């Protein structure tokens, strides 16, 4: 074996990849590089390198020897992802009853890693039904032109409009002649109904055709209305997109669109779902979305948790970049993508059973993600966290303010979810009271707009038994994006 060759890089896996992951990576490469399939000389040579790398890395003894020799020669790998774990308490008193404990996970790219920007393969799927006419469509065109200017020469853009049918206004192409492309955008007219599935299907097809080897593939769907009869097809399309590593982000403008459907489409495909409450804001939403897409640092981020004895996980939420409940699926808790400029923050609440003094295992955590800018798949970080139990309550320790603040925002989000549940069960008075309590808590953290909306809706709920469609959307999407940074508060 040659120490100077980086066998891991040849197979495109991280040094922490498991044997199974090494095997899958090898199989995928061999299928595309087999000499029977390929004639190019350089690719045949690549094939031989892949085989050589696999011979070493698939044999546990040879791999261990290789790792040792690499370490001795100074070829160590910097972890690309940085994980910081903070507990609410370092030590707990020995009590005769269960106790709660919180853990905060902060996930960021490692500080020394240079981030590169990946090429974007983007498709805009825009609603041009009759209701979009006038100011709405005009602002959407402006926002589209903004994107045309913002994207690089190596990005690919396609544009689909839909009403009763879908039209491919721009097949996937690099932005060579921006003037001509903008002219095509300005020619879009509004008319007809809303058939979201038609738009989605055409958009996904364009993305597939324009897909590159290392592109970030994403579809942005913008609509202002309801679709009828094709909701299931939309969800199936979202599932299929997810299997092909295409994310779909949805944006609803105005009050009349189906927020449950758009949320679900985004959730299943790993995209985000946003509420644009005024046409003037379309450009800033587009800009923020594109910015987060090109700044992706890691993908397929997920973690598994092995709990210590007598430790129960009560719940787990992501609180940054936006709040979402984390459900355990096979493969662990999915976090989606990690952006280069915004940390991903997770809060977990544990319930710990009584036990004698000493150090006890709280959990064993394994965080995995792919880092495309470094060509590494299955980058892995392991962390074992213990908590100390002392016979009596030790020095007053304060819970880190970061944790209190994150939990405060989270508690408002949970109340919003409970409010929606109350309404589904027809408990109007309870929902209205919850909204009033939410308003106070929102005021406390300086969220004046959202507090006012909650109070208004509480009143409306009491009087009419319903939320306004606009108020409902404002509250749902507003609480989801409560930022971790406190807003300016008047007074002192």
């Amino acid at each position, binding site marked *: 074996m040659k120490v100077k060759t980086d066998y891991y890089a040849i197979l495109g896996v991280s040094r922490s990849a498991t044997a199974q992951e090494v095997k899958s990576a090898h199989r995928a490469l061999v299928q595309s590089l087999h000499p029977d399939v390929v004639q190019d000389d350089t690719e045949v040579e690549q094939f031989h390198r892949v085989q050589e790398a696999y011979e070493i890395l698939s044999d546990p003894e040879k791999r261990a020897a290789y790792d040792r020799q690499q370490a001795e020669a100074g070829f160590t790998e910097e972890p690309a992802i940085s994980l910081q774990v903070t507990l*609410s*308490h370092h030590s*707990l008193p020995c*009590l005769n*009853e*269960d*106790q*709660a*404990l*919180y853990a905060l996970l902060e996930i960021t790219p490692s500080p020394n890693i240079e981030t590169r920007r990946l090429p974007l393969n983007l498709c805009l799927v825009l609603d041009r039904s009759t209701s979009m006419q006038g100011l709405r469509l005009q602002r959407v065109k402006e926002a589209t032109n903004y994107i045309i200017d913002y994207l690089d020469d190596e990005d690919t853009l396609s544009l689909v409009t839909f009403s009763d049918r879908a039209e491919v206004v721009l097949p996937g192409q690099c932005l060579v002649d921006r003037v001509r492309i903008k002219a095509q955008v300005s020619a879009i007219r509004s008319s007809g109904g809303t058939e979201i599935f038609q738009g989605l299907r055409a958009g996904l097809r364009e993305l597939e055709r324009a897909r590159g080897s290392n592109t970030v593939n994403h579809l942005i769907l913008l609509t202002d209305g309801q679709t009828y009869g094709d909701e299931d097809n939309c969800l199936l399309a979202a599932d299929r997109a997810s299997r092909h590593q295409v994310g779909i982000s949805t944006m609803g403008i105005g009050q009349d669109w189906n927020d449950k459907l758009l949320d679900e489409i985004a959730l299943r495909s790993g995209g985000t779902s946003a509420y644009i409450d005024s046409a003037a804001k379309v450009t800033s939403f587009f800009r923020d979305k594109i910015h987060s897409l090109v700044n992706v640092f890691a993908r397929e981020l997920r973690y598994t948790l092995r709990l210590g004895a007598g430790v129960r996980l009560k719940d787990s939420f992501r609180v940054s970049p936006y709040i979402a409940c984390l459900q355990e699926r096979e493969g662990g808790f999915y976090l989606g993508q990690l952006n280069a400029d915004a940390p991903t923050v997770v809060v977990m609440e544990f*319930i710990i059973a009584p036990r004698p003094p000493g150090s006890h295992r709280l959990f064993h955590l394994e965080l995995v993600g792919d880092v495309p800018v470094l060509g590494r798949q299955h980058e892995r970080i392991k962390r074992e966290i213990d908590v100390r139990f002392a016979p009596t309550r030790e020095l*007053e320790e*304060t*819970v880190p*303010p970061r*944790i*209190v*603040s994150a*939990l*405060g925002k*989270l*508690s*408002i989000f*949970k*109340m919003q979810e*409970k409010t929606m549940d109350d309404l589904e069960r027809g408990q109007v008075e309870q929902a209205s009271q*919850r909204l009033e*309590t*939410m308003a*106070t*808590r929102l*005021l*406390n*953290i300086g969220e*004046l707009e959202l507090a006012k909306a909650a109070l208004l809706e509480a009143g409306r709920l009491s009087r009419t038994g319903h939320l306004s469609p606009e108020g409902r959307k404002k509250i749902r999407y507003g609480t989801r994006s409560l930022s971790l940074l*406190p807003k300016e*508060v*008047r*007074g*002192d």
Partner: protein
Amino acid sequence: MIKCPSCQKRHPANTLFCDECGAYLAAEEDKHTDPLAMGNVDWMEETQQASPGLSSLNADRPLTLKLAVRDSGRIIEFPLTKEISIGRLDAASATFPDVDLTVDGGLEKGVSRRHARITRQGMDLFIEDLGSVNGTVLNNKRLTPYSPHPLKTGDEIQVGRLMLRVSVA
């Protein structure tokens, strides 16, 4: 087990927020560890100076403070067993006043998070402005910050633009 002061739901020890009503549950603990609680020091001196019989009488007689908020009509009652803080609740900066004027429009009416406090020495009450932005006015006279002033039933306190009427029982 902790009981939520707002909705009475029970939670395991160390739970920070009630997931039924969103109330902050660690408030009580926080107040006791506040190093600025100088009210305790005052009372200790008082019991040392007075004669044993009298001081125990004074210390034991329970007093209740009643504050009537003029605009909202809300009446807040508090036993005067320790100092009473007045202001606006803000979990993010760990400020948990005993009398939280947020629901009475405190934010709009210029009430600071740590606005004022009422302390007790024997049977006498004192009000002190804690360096608030918009000040505290007692019976139309503006209080100098950090200087306790005697307080009695019938007095009117204005914190920011919010008016409170005092009665002691």
